[in-house]
């Protein structure tokens, strides 16, 4: 094993701090700002402060802050994984980085085709951001994905990408796409077009939120049950909700880890599917080829002249 230089270790420590400190800060913030209450509360994100803006005030909420933390952590993770890349004797972290890149490349290639290979980093970003946003509730933080605004932002970006790819053959071809297969279905096609981002946003948001809601409900119910069954214990022992040990953890594994990961995967898969389905591949390449042929014939003509 080669001796690592001090600079290398220092950089590693900075990256690891980048991955951990934001979450620590968010936890501290959460603990400081959450009032003590024992009632069942199912609310959105906590609003830290409001910045006046035109149209609508900008609310800086827990979801925004946590989302930012996840971004910083993911950035740190990227730097950490790609720190000290080599072509031989590769480290464990490089194995992981290569595994991620190769897997996502394969996924994109399989579901979108070779033309869309530059979507791979976007898919990595969306998978990472979505999954780790859902995982933040493992730390007791508010998961940004259970805020509709966060997920709607991503869905709108995906919608922009879909429309951009559909417009690659010109607006006429794009509008003509609405009249297929039959012309009178155009309004329905139009609605379904705009339903795509909404459905994506609500699917993701609803899954994560419902998980949180069920977790809270069961935790509260268990507390009540505990009070009822074990309330006779003397002193403060009676106030400890013993029944809350165990079951919420198992549910958290399902709702937070499994469901969060699954929703991230679904969101990424839907993105790839919609974008590649929307892209008029055959038409695009036919036009491209026609253009090139025209160009070459023009060239030949000018050469003849």
């Amino acid at each position: 094993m080669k001796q690592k230089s001090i600079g290398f270790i220092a950089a590693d420590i900075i990256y690891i701090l980048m991955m951990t400190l934001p979450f620590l800060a968010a936890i501290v913030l959460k603990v400081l700002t959450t009032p003590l209450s024992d009632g069942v509360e199912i609310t959105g994100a906590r609003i830290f402060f409001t910045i006046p803006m035109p149209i609508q005030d900008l609310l800086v909420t827990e979801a925004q802050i946590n989302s930012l933390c996840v971004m910083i952590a993911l950035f740190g993770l990227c730097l950490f994984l790609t720190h000290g890349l080599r072509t031989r004797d590769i480290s464990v972290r490089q194995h992981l980085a290569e595994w991620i890149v190769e897997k996502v490349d394969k996924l994109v290639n399989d579901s979108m085709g070779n033309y869309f290979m530059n979507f791979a980093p976007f898919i990595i970003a969306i998978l990472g951001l979505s999954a780790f946003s859902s995982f933040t509730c493992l730390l007791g933080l508010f998961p940004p994905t259970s805020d509709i605004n966060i997920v709607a932002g991503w869905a709108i970006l995906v919608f922009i990408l879909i429309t951009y790819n559909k417009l690659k053959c010109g607006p006429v071809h794009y509008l003509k796409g609405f009249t297929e297969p039959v012309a009178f279905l155009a309004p329905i096609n139009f609605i379904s077009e705009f339903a795509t981002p909404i459905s994506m946003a609500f699917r993701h948001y609803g899954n994560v939120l419902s998980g949180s809601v069920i977790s809270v409900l069961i935790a509260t119910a268990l507390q009540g049950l505990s009070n009822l069954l074990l309330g006779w214990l003397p002193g403060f022992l009676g106030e400890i909700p013993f029944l809350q040990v165990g079951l919420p953890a198992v549910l958290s594994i399902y709702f937070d880890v499994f469901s969060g990961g699954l929703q991230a995967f679904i969101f990424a898969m839907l993105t790839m599917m919609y974008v590649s389905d929307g892209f008029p591949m055959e038409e695009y390449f036919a036009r491209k080829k026609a253009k090139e042929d025209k160009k070459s014939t023009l060239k030949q003509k000018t050469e003849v002249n």
Partner: protein
Amino acid sequence: MQNLDVISVNLWQILISLANLVILFLLVKKFLYKPVKKVLKQRQDEIEVQYTAAKQAEDQALKNKEQYEAKLTGAKDEADSIIKTAAETAKRRSEAIAAEAEEKATRILRQAEQDAALEREKAADGIKKEIIEVSSELSKKLIEREINTDDHKALIDSFIEEIGEGNE
């Protein structure tokens, strides 16, 4: 401080959330996706380079092997030819040496014969000279004295004796 309602739509919050996702997308692209892709590509390139190098080395090795095999058979032929030529040269040399030796021997023999002939001639010359000397001496003595028959006879005898003595 109060809470939001469970469902409350706020335009600015939606816009901020949208912007957040865009920003996170850019961050992920810049700091995770691109670097990892780059490293993967680099590794791919390195592997390609190594594969080509290995292929080249293999080709080279095969070529070398063929060359060595060809060289080996060539060397065998060469060795055969070298041995053959060496044997021939040796044969030729030995023949030449033998011929030379024979020639030399003949020359020596001839020389010896010549020498012997010369010697014999020399000896004959010497005898002749002596005879002349003796005869001249004899004639001197004959001229010096009145020769009678007896004397003459005695003289000849003594002379012959003298010669005989001289010859002994």
